[in-house]
């Protein structure tokens, strides 16, 4: 046979062989079987939690203007009790140029290793969300969010940048079940803020988002 025909014959018989093996007729031989039962698949959990960290164990916001919780459940400022945390730094209200540093702890209460990938701010329910004063405030209030233990800056810019939904952290960090990650918030009201924001109150919620670390 010539080369071409031989090659064709080889591939044809090869394919024929494969189809015979794959498709072919049944026949009886000795058999046995074994099973491995009850294989459990339990999914792990991602559970991100937070507490503020002002040296106290009272839950509450990092930034507050008066020492009492509006709902009256607990005081925010334990001054007068041993180990008192710092009280409201901006006594008498914020003035342009003011600079306040606060902190919070993020916990991974789940079973899976997680990584924190996004953060954002929202206007608290019922708080001022428009107006000349509000618009100026969110642009003149600079927030620098850091993870000092790993020397990371998570966000550094005006508060307005955090109010449009989740913002991706450029260098996400891992958070393992248990130990907290201490996150600091540095808020600075720019000196160029003027009388338009005088005597007003703005309230915000700060959120973090974590995803599973594995395969991600």
């Amino acid at each position, binding site marked *: 046979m010539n080369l071409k025909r031989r090659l064709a014959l080889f591939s044809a018989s090869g394919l024929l062989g494969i189809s015979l093996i794959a498709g072919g007729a049944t026949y009886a031989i000795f058999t046995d079987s074994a099973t491995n039962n009850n294989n459990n698949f339990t999914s792990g959990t991602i559970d991100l939690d937070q507490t503020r960290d002002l040296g106290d164990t009272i839950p509450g916001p990092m930034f507050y203007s008066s020492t009492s919780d509006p709902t009256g459940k607990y005081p925010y400022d334990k001054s007068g009790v041993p180990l008192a945390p710092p009280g409201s730094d901006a006594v008498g209200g914020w003035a342009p140029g003011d600079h306040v540093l606060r902190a919070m702890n993020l916990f991974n209460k789940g079973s899976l290793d997680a990584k924190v990938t996004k953060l954002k701010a929202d206007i608290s329910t019922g708080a001022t969300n428009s107006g000349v004063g509000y618009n100026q405030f969110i642009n003149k209030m600079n927030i620098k969010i850091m993870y000092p233990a790993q020397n990371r800056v998570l966000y550094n810019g005006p508060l307005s940048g955090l109010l449009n939904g989740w913002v991706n952290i450029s260098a996400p960090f891992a958070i393992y079940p248990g130990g907290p990650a201490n996150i600091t918030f540095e808020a600075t009201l720019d000196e160029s803020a003027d009388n338009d924001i005088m005597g007003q*109150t703005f309230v915000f919620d700060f959120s973090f988002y*974590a995803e599973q670390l594995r395969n991600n």
Partner: protein
Amino acid sequence: MSLKKKMGAALVTTALGAALIGGGTFAIFSDSATNAQNTFTSGTLDINLTDSAYSGAKHVSLTDIAPGDEGTKTITVKNDGSLQLRYNITQALNGFLASNDPDNDSVADPGESNPLAVTLKDSTGAEVTKLTDRVLNSGASETFTVEYKMPINAGNTYQAKSATYDFSVAAEQTRNN
């Protein structure tokens, strides 16, 4: 099947398999945590003037005065805001009664150059020399006395003339400033 058809079928199957693996979105586990109700309240800068006789008035009209007359008016400066402030005082005395040439004829008539004089004094009775950067805490106030005096030697050209004294304050925050 013919060879061609068989190979064709194999190719299609593989292609289909690849599409199944590659395509579609997937959800991974995630959660979020929120530190809520962070309150930011801005302070207020508010400076106000009160006069013992005229509340809110910032200038005092002095008329129908005769040579030798003198009197006082009090002005109180108050910080009604929540922030400490520092302020400057600006005063102005205008009008022919306070001029050296009340009839404005550029001629030194008898009794001229004896104008109405106004002196600003603080609560201790001393003349106020520091007119800038006076500091007031939130809620605090300072009282000044405006003393006016018409010299006994003022001549007739001072008759039927008037003067106004303006007292104003401008404040700014002391913090970060």
